[in-house]
């Protein structure tokens, strides 16, 4: 029995799906417009992928490795500080 996996397919790790990147699913991506952002944090709990990272009350970055491009963050932002762009842009 390895340390990562137990009997009966049990996964002995916690939250290791972060090693699986879903970022290539998207056709559009969120562009964070820092000058418009008021760090209200509204977008953070609305990201299904948990990829909007904040640090000490400041919106840090949007981790595109996981972003599936749903666009919810851009729609919930009260300050239009997130703009969806086509992935080729």
């Amino acid at each position, binding site marked *: 029995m390895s340390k*990562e*996996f137990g009997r009966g*397919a049990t*996964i002995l*790790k*916690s*939250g*290791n*799906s*972060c*090693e*699986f*990147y*879903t970022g290539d*699913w*998207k056709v559009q991506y969120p562009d964070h417009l820092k000058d418009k952002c008021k760090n*209200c*944090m*509204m977008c*953070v*709990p*609305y990201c*299904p*992928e*948990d*990829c909007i990272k*904040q640090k000490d*009350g400041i919106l840090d970055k949007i*981790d595109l*490795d*996981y972003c*599936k*491009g*749903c*666009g*919810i963050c*851009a*729609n*919930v932002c009260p300050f239009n500080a997130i703009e*969806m762009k086509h992935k080729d842009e």
Partner: protein
Amino acid sequence: MAYNLKEMVNKKSRLASGHRMCAGCGAPLIVRNSLRALKDEDHAVISCATGCLEVSTCIYPYTSWKDCSFLHTAFECASACASGASKTYEKLKRENKLPQDKDTKFIAFGGDGGTYDIGLQSLSGAMERRTDMTYICYDNGAYMNTGTQRSSSTPHFADTTTSPAGKVIPGKVQPRKDLAEIMIAHNIPYVAQTALIGNMKDLYEKAEKAIYTEGPTCVVALSPCPRGWGYPTEDLQKISKLAVDTCFWPLYEVENGKYHITYKPAKKLPVEEFLRPQKRFKHMFKEGNEWMIEQFQKEVDKKWEYLLMMEEITNK
């Protein structure tokens, strides 16, 4: 403690990135934000019914469940599994086989299929036995995992793959089952209905109350499904708000029998505002089908009036 979004987003995220739910799905938002209501120092055991959530968050060798332990067995028994774990916890803790200063909370997640339908008996049993657990239903109103088949939570007239809107039958012919009221009839200490609106205060506070109320508690959360409902993924918050503002999905809680409507729309919108943006209700807007919208409106009004009445009666 008053709700504060900035503090809330600082709490542990117990559902990691890299899960494979569809883009724009409401379920991970319900799960992550309700689990944020846990105290960071508390352990949680999650029991999950088979469904979208399970097959997308725990695909061997990956798990998205973080800082909590996760158990999935089958479709209809998340409650029974949680009750077995919860009772064993009580026993082992009583006998000092577990540390006294560490608390574990038991939370079951199921979609409407695993809750309203195939899992109803198991849920009812666990609630009746006064199991110390919280059941959270992410309710997207159909069997989305198998491709949008009708469930007993599917709204009246909705077009699903097993209640298709055809020439003779206009979608699902029955109104939806009311799970929250069934849970209330179990006389459990806390039942709530919530949705993904505003700054998540409603969901967070109800989850917190549910998790930290001793005994069985249940939260029914409206979980928009862009694929099954037929709306653009980015409109999750908008569609949830319309569900609430039309009173299709009233936000309320029942604490020890006392009803409390947690959100009363300043202006109750006609239900067609909620129906129109969704493909599953498209046929209701065809000429000659006005009666469906009228019928739907009547059902929504009836439930809303019932809630207003219950709030008044139970708080006298």
